[in-house]
């Protein structure tokens, strides 16, 4: 099977810091690919390079076999790649519903919508509320609350709900459960499975090993700016994975770079 999304030799430098160091990457159709690694290993930079949020200095990215070169996240979104960034990317002063539909607002039916381009607020609010309920975010008391007034976890929930609702080709989640409670995390994992069952592959960055081993089909282990190896959760224990990503052990057939 051909990878749906493929990165080769990606390099990204920030001044003195090399965040991606000739990194490779593959995502196959319909799979959940987890990406794990130390803090600062370059995971977020990797997915930013894929989603158009940063432009890699070197290397090539292919989507469905065709080389792509996104220069903005909007292009990636248009190509069906939906991302939850670690920084969440929300407009603090706008409401939850506004944020969820940012860039793909619904217009009112009839003349008001087509000529006067009026937003369909009630429909957007209803949809937003439904998606949040699916995630179990019951403590959100007011769907018109500004996002800046939400708790850390509530914000995370809104971002995840947005990506899951709109992703059509790839959904990328950068630590989606980091700020979430037990109940809400569980819902996100269910949601991830749900998205996969719609045939959409998912890239999941997480530091939560139990979660990773529970849902991932393959695990991409990132170390010092590059892919160290890819493992299947069935073949290795969590302990092995942790050992690989922290440099305590080396997987077979891989040599630590000098």
């Amino acid at each position, binding site marked *: 099977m051909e990878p749906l999304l493929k990165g080769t030799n990606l390099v990204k430098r920030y001044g003195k810091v090399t965040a991606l160091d000739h990194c490779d990457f593959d995502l196959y159709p319909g799979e959940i690919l987890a990406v794990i690694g130390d803090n600062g290993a370059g995971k977020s930079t990797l997915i930013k390079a894929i989603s158009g949020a940063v432009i890699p200095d070197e290397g090539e990215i292919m989507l469905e076999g065709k080389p792509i070169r996104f220069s903005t*996240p*909007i292009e990636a979104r248009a190509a069906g790649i939906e991302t939850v960034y670690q*920084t969440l990317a929300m*407009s*603090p*002063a*706008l409401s939850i519903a506004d944020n969820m539909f940012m860039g793909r607002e619904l217009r009112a039916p009839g003349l008001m919508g087509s000529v006067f381009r009026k937003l369909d607020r009630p429909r957007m609010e209803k949809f937003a509320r439904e998606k949040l309920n699916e995630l179990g975010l019951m*403590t959100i008391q007011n769907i018109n609350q500004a996002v800046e007034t939400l708790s850390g976890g509530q914000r995370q929930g809104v971002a995840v709900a947005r990506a899951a609702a709109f992703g059509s080709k790839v959904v990328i989640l950068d630590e989606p459960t980091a700020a979430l409670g*037990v109940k809400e995390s569980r819902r996100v994992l269910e949601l991830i499975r749900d998205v996969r069952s719609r045939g959409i592959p998912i890239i999941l960055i997480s530091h939560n*090993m139990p979660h990773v081993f529970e849902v991932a089909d393959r695990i991409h282990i990132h170390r010092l700016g590059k892919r160290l190896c890819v493992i299947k959760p069935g073949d290795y224990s969590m302990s092995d994975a942790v050992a690989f990503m922290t440099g305590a052990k080396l997987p077979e057939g891989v040599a630590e770079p000098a």
Partner: protein
Amino acid sequence: MTDAKTASSFEEGLKGASEKVAEFHEEKSQLKRLQHWLHQTPSAVPMIVLMVALLVFGVLAENFFKAGTLSVILQQIAIVGILGCAQTIVILTAGIDLSVGAIAVFSSVLMGQATFRYGVPAEIAIVIGLILGTAMGAVNGLLIAKMKLPPFIATLGTWQILLAANFIFSANETIRSSDIAATAPALQFWGGSIQPGGIKILYAVFLMIALVAIMSYVLRSTAWGRHVYATGDDPQAAELAGVPTGKVLIQVYALAGFFCAVAGWVMIGRFGSVSPTASTGQLGNIQSITAVVIGGISLFGGRGSIVGMFFGALIVGVFEMGLRLVGTDPQWTFFLIGVLIIFAVAVDQWIRKVAS
């Protein structure tokens, strides 16, 4: 694989978790409601300040509460109000446009000279002026969105450039009102008026109110309006969330340029003549920014409503007229307007604090 199960074993506790949406009892006292309303309605505070100002001057100056005086106030703020529409959308994107006044004056000169120097029919001259004004705004937008110049510096530059170009192009020549009335009355269109019961209300006033109403709708109820807010709120986040911030910025500045050109056309109607030395070129930016800020719109972008700007412009207009009627000396007028700017915004901040 085994420890995955175990690790999540404590999640069994989730079974039967409450699905209740959190709800707390709310105090429904009148005061609380008022506070909530003040908090939710960004234009409420300037409106209250305006009311108070009207009352105070109504008492202090005998000629103040005449329909004639009030209609004069409206016509005096028409131009600042239209420039304020331009300034509002720009400031909502966390920008600032120092060139608004210069674009307005230059556009009016372009309309006038196109007619009188080059003999273009007035209607076409107006269209040319509007297009060129929009283009000047678009240049601001390009500098800011594409070349990433800070809006303050980009528009500071274009302000100087346009003002100088305006003087050079016009050769400092004022076109007289009587000539315009004779040859190109379309230029003076907005100076026309209706006179219900003898009180003169300029078309320009209706235009300003219409523009505020339209922009209020656009900003609140269309996707584009939301994008403007998002761009000003946190441009990086907006970009990541799928707002084409660059495009939005260019559109915003171009639209602002268009409004300025409209203001330029209105200036011809209001003053009768076309004068390159109109002080709007120098002061239009500060005046419009003052209206915007008194109207409760944040200079850091993303917060506030255009209706607030309208009240802001009115507050300044009422103060100026009121002080004139009371007979204050010009320097004292400037002094008091300074005091009142600070006072108006301080009251605004105070009410917000109390209400929050």
